[in-house]
């Protein structure tokens, strides 16, 4: 298993204007590598949800994508409040998004479940008051 390349994007808290840019860059990169469209779509869904979670819920963080010859591994890590109850957060429809984010169409409680569904492997770890880290793997 050979690592071809790795890139890291900073994601700022509350930056809805640039939110989605990391996902968009990763998508373009995968297209250049000739990865199949349906695989790219799954990666985009997972990556976008992770990116917007950092924008909405955290104090800022990063998205790191490591591309291997057979898979992509995406790590989304933030500094912030963390998740109190991960099992609850993984339930569709459960959301702690603030009112303004809901008005923008976010906060449907679909983000984490969407990520899990879109990936082949999904890991989440969080420490209250410190961080949340999501690691996702999709095979090509």
């Amino acid at each position: 298993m050979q690592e071809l390349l790795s890139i890291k994007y900073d994601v700022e808290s509350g930056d809805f204007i640039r939110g989605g840019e990391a996902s968009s860059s990763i998508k373009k990169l995968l297209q250049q590598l000739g990865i199949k469209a349906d695989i790219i779509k799954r990666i985009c869904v997972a990556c976008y949800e992770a990116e917007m979670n950092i924008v909405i819920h955290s104090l800022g963080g990063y998205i790191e994508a490591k591309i291997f010859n057979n898979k992509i591994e995406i790590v989304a890590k933030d500094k912030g409040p963390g998740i109190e109850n991960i099992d609850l957060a993984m339930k569709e429809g459960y959301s702690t998004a603030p009112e303004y984010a809901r008005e923008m169409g976010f906060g449907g409680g679909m983000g984490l479940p969407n990520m899990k569904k879109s990936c082949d492997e999904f890991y989440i770890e969080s420490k209250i008051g410190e961080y949340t880290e999501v690691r996702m793997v999709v095979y090509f």
Partner: protein
Amino acid sequence: MKVKDIMNSLNLKILAGENGLDKDARGVYCCDLLSWVMSHAKSQNVWITVQIHTNIVAIASLLELSCIIIPESIEVEENTLEKANEENIPILQSDLTSYQLCVKLNQLGIDE
């Protein structure tokens, strides 16, 4: 059917993304909950939404949707239009409601 054919047939006003008018449109997706759109809309769909902030362009671009139609003459934020121009995502505006738009799109022969 091309996006520009839909624009002309439904008398839609183009607000941004003119360079994308030659895209092929297939099917319609109508929803304002972004994660739901993210996981259910299909590439080339026409997307009807009342959301007007920049992230709708990010979603349309990531999913390769053909265009965004904004119902009920809602004004769209300026930075959304700028981003749509950069990404060549047509943003079209109508005075019809989302439901009326769906009916008209169906009459045009666009399936789900």
